[in-house]
């Protein structure tokens, strides 16, 4: 755990990204350096990868965009994110991109229904989830 952890309420104040009002504003957002899932996205440590180099802009990066702007998984500034390929036909990678959080920094990923995920220093892949239908399709949460 980092010393500068935030509660959900503090994160909303800092980043201006609202989450559902039944999620407790006092709850501390865990900052993790291991694998964690937020809805249909998976953040997975990738220590062997070359670090990402594209700064996450002040507005954040939508790694998975939801319906009419809602339910977007939004990576917030504080690190680097290189967007990668998305799935084309089920045989390709599910990787959405590569995230690097510098030493001393924390990157938060926000989602209206799932709240905030805190990601500590390191390099990660961000992937999305699939399911088996006639053709493999993406999970919509």
């Amino acid at each position, binding site marked *: 755990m980092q010393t500068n952890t935030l509660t959900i309420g503090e994160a909303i104040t800092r980043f201006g990204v609202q989450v559902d009002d*039944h999620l407790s504003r006092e709850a501390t957002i865990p900052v*993790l350096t291991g694998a*964690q899932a937020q809805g249909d996205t998976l953040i*997975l440590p990738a220590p062997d990868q070359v670090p990402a180099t594209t700064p996450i802009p002040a507005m954040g990066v939508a790694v998975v965009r939801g*319906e009419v702007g809602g339910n977007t998984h939004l990576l917030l500034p504080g690190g680097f994110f290189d967007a990668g390929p998305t799935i084309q036909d089920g045989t390709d990678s599910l990787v959405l991109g590569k995230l690097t959080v510098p030493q001393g920094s924390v990157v938060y990923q926000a989602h209206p229904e799932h709240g905030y995920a805190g990601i500590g220093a390191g390099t990660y892949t961000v992937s999305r989830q699939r399911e*088996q239908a006639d053709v493999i399709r993406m*999970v919509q949460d």
Partner: protein
Amino acid sequence: MAEKITELTPEQEAALEPHRDMWLDIGLSTERANRTEAEAGAREAYTIAGLDQPEAVIWLDSPMEGAIGAWMLASSLAEEAAAGTIAIESRPSIMSLTDTDCDERYPEVWERIMAVIGRDKDYPTFSEVWAGTTPSARNGAKSAIREQVRSAAYGQHDAGWLSFNDYFRVVVPVEGTEKLSGLIRVAKSCGWWWPFDRAIILTERPTALHLDPQQRLHNADGPAIEYADGFALYSWHGTRVPVEMIRGEWDTTRILQEPNAEVRRSAIERLGWDEFVVEAKLEQVGEVMDDPGNPGCTIALYDVPAVIYDEPVRVLICTNGTTERGGTRRKFGLTTPVECATPLEAAAWGYNVSPEVYATLQRRA
């Protein structure tokens, strides 16, 4: 034969995405029709086609009303023609305008364009409305009405092919595409329409249209597309379904009687997999396991026979890592290949990681 276009300039290429977005907005618009502009566009199309101007313009509220109105108008015109009071075809050759032979002139850039617009190319919305109107017309009246569905001009729902030609009309431009300007004005202004010799039937756009994030028609709680006269289509992630299914009136017995596999699958999703596995007495595969990163919750895997899902799959029943309003946690099902032998393998397959990696999950929110 004019010179072939083999590549786009950087400026022309930069115009692709805004052009695509503009036409998506046109195709999906639920604004009220711009009636003045639609009528002017239709009249322009008549002029370009070398036809006399129509005397009457009739506005109706939906493709269904339009198809019925067109059938009535075509019938009365046919009667007049039979009686010798008019000696003209009941339908002018407006659609001959669409024969621009421009397509042959830019095949080389087609692939490039598809690469740019590719992520939106599966746009079934328009064809769904078409498919929705056809069987409803069959149920509602005579097959003659269905024929009017086929002979309509689709206005905003012509966005697919018109956008392509409009790009070459406005951005490049290619000679010959200017013939489409009247049709394009109509497409930008209203819904389906029917050109006749002495009259035009024009129809309104939908009043509401709902899509899922993959841009398929979808509404879990009501019509996915709705017109002012009440004509509506119900759709579950792009699969057209009966209204009773969307209203939640289908039980497991009714779901299993459904002959259409796509509709059956949609109905299972609508009911909820966690309920369905119990109701349909699906066989459990492997042991129930703790859900990594989701303390106090478990994951369980069930066999879904081919008779239910049109190919054998398994379904992983999970519990959401985040509480709902009211403090409950939503259960949901994720379908996986039959090769997944345990709940952990199935959960790992969903993210394309190994079970060992998935087991290290520290938090599942």
